[in-house]
């Protein structure tokens, strides 16, 4: 290596080092260049649309099961019974946010916008079980089922009575159709009849329990969608 190249090496090393040191010196003395956000005293302002923890407004939820079907990792599980008005009534709704990957597919498919993302991201727990959010408390489920069964039974009895009344009204001329309607009404009455007896044993015992969960669910439903802390309290009450 010639002398010129040798000296060039040295000069280049010194010059590039000096350039770099000038930049780091500027950063070293300029106090505006600190970009640290000192969590937890300072917090990042969460933008609208942030995909945080999930919250389901169970009053609006129609238990259509779309969220359950679309979740790629099966974190959502729900249980529902068919109510008196032929609509599904939610008995339990669990989301395992420890497994959830916050992809947002479930929120996207919800047809009634009851399942939404909140801005929550802090739920450090010591046990994995704590990361399963129960939107309906576990002990409320039998009560709801009992209540719904009771309503269905009452509706069935009313329907049977109506059908019987209708059968009585129908004149004997249109016999074929009338006979069919009367038979259908009698079949319904027969179907509806055993149900109240079966549920009779459960009903008084569960009737009391049925009163309590309505307050629990109301509270969980009252929890506003976007405030994570309130929602957390409402759900963790088990």
């Amino acid at each position, binding site marked *: 290596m010639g002398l010129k190249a040798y000296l060039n*090496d040295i000069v*280049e*090393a010194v010059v*590039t*080092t000096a*350039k*770099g040191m000038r*930049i*780091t010196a500027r*950063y070293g003395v300029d106090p505006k260049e600190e*970009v640290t956000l000192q969590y937890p005293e300072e917090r990042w302002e969460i*933008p*609208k*649309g*942030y*995909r945080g923890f999930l919250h389901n407004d169970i009053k609006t939820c129609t238990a259509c099961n779309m969220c359950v079907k*679309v*979740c*790629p990792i099966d974190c959502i599980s729900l249980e529902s019974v068919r109510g008196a008005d032929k609509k599904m009534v939610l008995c339990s709704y669990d989301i395992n946010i420890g497994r959830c*990957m*916050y*992809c*947002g*597919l479930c929120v*996207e*498919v919800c047809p009634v916008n009851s399942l939404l*993302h909140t801005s929550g991201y802090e739920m450090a727990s010591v046990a994995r079980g704590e990361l399963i959010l129960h939107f309906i408390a576990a002990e409320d489920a039998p009560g709801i089922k009992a209540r719904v069964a009771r309503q269905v039974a009452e509706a069935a009895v009313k329907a049977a009575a109506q059908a019987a009344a209708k059968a009585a009204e129908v004149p004997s001329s249109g016999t074929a159709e009338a006979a069919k309607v009367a038979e259908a009404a009698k079949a319904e009455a027969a179907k509806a009849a055993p149900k109240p007896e079966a549920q009779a044993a459960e009903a008084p015992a569960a009737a009391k329990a049925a009163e309590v969960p309505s307050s629990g669910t109301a509270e969980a439903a009252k929890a506003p969608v976007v405030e994570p802390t309130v929602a957390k309290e409402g759900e963790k009450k088990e």
Partner: protein
Amino acid sequence: MTIRTDALPTQEMTINMGPQHPSTHGVLRVILTTDGEVVTRAVPDMGYLHRGLEKIGERVTYAQYMPFTDRLDYLAAMNCNCAWAWTVEKLAKIEVPARAEYLRVIVCELNRISSHLIAFGSYTADMGAFTPFLYAIRERERVNDLFEMLCGNRLTYNYARVGGVSGDAPPGFLEKTKEFLDYFEPKLDEYNNLISYNKIFVHRLANVAVISAEEAVAYGLTGPNLRGSGVPFDLRKDEPYSVYPKFDFKVCVGTGERGTLGDCFDRYMVRINEMRESVKIVRQAVAQIPDGPVRAKVPRLFKPPVGEAYFRSECPRGETGIYLISDGTVNPLRLKIRTGSFVTMNIFEKVTRGLMIADVVAVIGSFDIILPEIDR
């Protein structure tokens, strides 16, 4: 560095540059056989991060698979999301609205910037200069802020959908993007002054692991690794997809400015220059973006026609190609993902022969591999 065969005979040492190592960019195990400091053989042992992503594809639907593509290359998640969306749209011949395509290009290029920032930052950190890594992270956080505003998440975006994107840009997003670009462009000059042309850094990278253009093509390298060897092949220009033909940008090629053409320094500079070009593309996209819907109507239980499609897109780490076979049901029959990092590992053993251990680190950094792409 050559090994002198007439010198005192010494024993070769087998060292494990194990899965837990600060410089292997993930859980890559390299079994090094060295003669002192000089490597005689370096065999990569992959598979520590294999999650069966291709098998998962066979049991979920097309829409459900989108979040899994996030995890394919988590530093360039938008690119992988869009690659999947484009593949399915090619198979089912779905027309995507213009605004959605523009938004896809914007997020893909922004993600290219943030991915190259990590490549740059972690490379300099491997070389011992810890400071540029933090500057790169700072810039990347700003890109993440933009994405958080757009889709709600900072790393696993799940933004693209079959037929468009999940949601339109909120008001203020395009202005904030322009602000970020104005803030970021001068930073590249600062990085060049600080570290890129620093004599020590240049000496570490120049003439290390020279890959000629023929070798690069023969081993199937793609992306910046290929362009660093002087081959001007960029899928965005040579097989254009989406709305890339509407943008004016250069293909960045290695020039051998500080050493031989095709060495680590060229690959590094290609990435720095690509960031500049991405800034140009995003500026043009933000200026040209039309109004309109952002999502085409696609049935909920989407059943594409029977057939197969292969779509390849230019991801920051090379060409990501997805080969999709559909049998007409809601789940794909088979999908195969071809990633740039996996194919780059082909040349690893050849290129590291005769290098020193410190150079092996330089080579891994210059290839910009990422393990989820290699192991899937």
